[in-house]
Each structure stands twice: as C-alpha cells, then as structure tokens.
C-alpha cells in the first residue's frame, strides 16, 4: 500500500485542480492500492512544521520506504513517477 501526503495552502481553484490531477495519476498507477491525505497548512501549521515542510505544494510519499519529498509541479506524470521510483532519495 502506497501512502502519500499532499501539503497545500488553502483550497483555491488552482489547488483543487492540482489535487484532481494528482488523484488521476495515482489512481491510474496504483489503482486502489494507495491513500492520499491532504494537509492544508493554513488549517494545520503545526503539522507542516513538524514534517519540515518549507513550501507548498509538496508531495510526500511516506510508505513504502524510502520517504520521498517533491516540491512544485506534478503535472508531468512521467517525471513524477520517475522521481518517486528513483533510488537516490533517502
């Protein structure tokens, strides 16, 4: 089971569109074998601080290990999955 966390700031149209795109990618790739938790840092700033989130949008793959953290643009699914699967992250 893959576990993802997406840190966002507010829920504006652009962010909602980003969430939908990301959900589409993840569903296509992992079917129902994933969970995606959305953390709005405006609602939960403490969590962002504890998880060392310095900017949004940030996507974290927390399981299976290793943890991977990506900041910025997730619109290119090829680049996104290449990074999520790369072995350089620790």
């Amino acid at each position: 089971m893959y576990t993802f966390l997406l840190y966002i700031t507010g829920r504006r149209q652009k962010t909602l569109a980003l969430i939908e795109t990301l959900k589409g990618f993840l569903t296509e790739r992992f079917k129902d074998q994933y969970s995606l938790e959305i953390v709005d840092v405006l609602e939960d700033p403490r969590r962002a601080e504890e998880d060392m989130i310095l900017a949004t949008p940030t996507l974290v793959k927390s399981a299976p290990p290793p943890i991977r953290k990506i900041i910025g643009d997730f619109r290119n699914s090829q680049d996104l999955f290449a990074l999520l699967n790369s072995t350089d992250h620790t």
Partner: protein
Amino acid sequence: MEEAKTPEFWLNERSTMDQGGKPRVQDHEEFFRLIVEHSADAIIVVDRGGFVRFLNPAAEHLFGRTSEQMVGKSFGFPMAFGMPLELNILRPGQESRVAEMRVAEMRVAEIARQNETLYMANLRDITELVRLREELRTMALIDDLTGLNNRRGFSTLGQQQLKLADRTKRGMFLLFSDLDNLKWINDTFGHHEGDQALIEAATIHRETFRQSDIIARVGGDEFAVLAVEAYQDSGDILAARLQERLRTHNAQSNRRYKLSISVGLDYYDPLSPRSIDELLDRADRSMYEQKQQKKQMRNSERGIEKKKHGNTR
C-alpha cells in the same frame, strides 16, 4: 572618464596570472561568491535526494532560517523544469505556528558537477506582485454592489470548473435567476431600495448554495449559479431550495414588499460538453419560460377574481 572595456579584455582579465605565474583563482572565487551572496533572488542547491547543500543569504531571508538550520536537511526535490512555478513559502513562527506566508516564483536548473548532479532552485519573492494581481483580479471580477462574482468572474471561474467537470466526469447545474419587478421597486421606492433588493437577492443566493458553488450577478437583475458536483435529477431540488429560502426571507414582518425570483436551469453533462455561454443561454431561456408561466397564472387568477366580483354584483 575611464573607457569602456571590450569583452575580450574581461575574458583576458579572468585568466590573468598572478606574480608567481598562477591564475588568480581565489579572486574569481571571491568574485562569484560575492555575486551569489548579493543576489536578490534566493538560491538553494539540493542533491538528488532533496537535501540542502547550499543556500544564499536571500534564501535564508525568504525561508526565515539560517544555513546552519537548513544545510543537510530535507527540502524536497524541486520540480519545475522549463516553466517557472509559484510556490507558497512557509516561514516559521513562534510555537510552531506559520507566522508568515510568502509567494515565490521558482525555476530549477540542473548542475552537473564532478561525479554528481545537483539542482539549483532560484526563487524570486513575488508576494507583493501576487497581492496586487489579486487586488486587480478582484476589482475586475467582482460585482461592487453585491460582492458576488460579476459576469466576467463567472465566465472565468465557470470555464475552469467545466474543465474540472470534464476530467472528473461529474455533472453540474447552471441555475439562472432573475429578480422580478426590479423596475417597479425602483420606480415605487427609489433606486436605493432597488439596490437593497439586489443585495438581499444576492444574500438569498449565498445562503442557499454551497461555498464551492460559483455564484454571480451576471446582469442588472440577473444571477447565475454553477452548482458543482450535482446529480442530473437534483435541479428541481436546487430551485426549490432557493424558493424556500426566499419564502423565509419574505416572511420577515417588517417587509414593505415581497421579493420574487424566477429560475431557469440547465444541466452540464461532461459527456456532451457545452460552453459556459451556451449553458447561460439555455438556462436563461428556461427561466423566461417560467416567467411567462407565472404571468399566465397571474392573469388567469385575475380573470377568475374579476368573474367572481362580476357574479356578485
């Protein structure tokens, strides 16, 4: 006055030897270090693991953290190749609260260095620019009187919503409504009262629909609502909810007149896409039909009343 130097001069200057015949490497390092240190743009260099290797003073300022606090720590892999990307920067506050949010535009470049590849994120603080942009956007897209979106705002947000509906394959309803008898209210009670009636109608719409729905005043006495993620059979429920809210509003005892709203509906089916203007047009026509029906009903009621009075005389 000193003469301007040619590019060749500066290229030669870069490789000038020191007195011992060695290139002045230290001078050049110092020169580039000063450029990076004095750059107004934040520069943060990470490795492929997303761990910070270097940040300049502008980056320390932007993130509100020192090099000591950030170098070696996880920043994340910055992904923005090609196009610049807007990021929200979270600056630390007291007791783990995010004290301030900045907006930065990020560009990323790959640096091949000896046996490793590093990634340099250039971040430009555009917080003020974004604030001004939002202000302009608000001025251009919001109706002054009611605070709802104006027609342009409705069209802009509506188009985004249609794209989203196409992707998610979830339908939507466009509800077109018209505040009846605005001219009569203006003529009888004055334009101030007419404005007040429009504000009340806007409030009724706001209280009826969800925050995620797009509500707008699209003309003098016309309103439009894009009710997102609605089922095809929920149109009548939406219209009934609006009329119910209107009845509650009209039931207030101190009213000099009752507000009346006519409604038309059109369903957006992602399987047969239409433009926002087509939707508005179809819902407008549906509303016109309802208005005509209302008139006919009123006229026939008056006819019955007349007949009743005629019979009693």
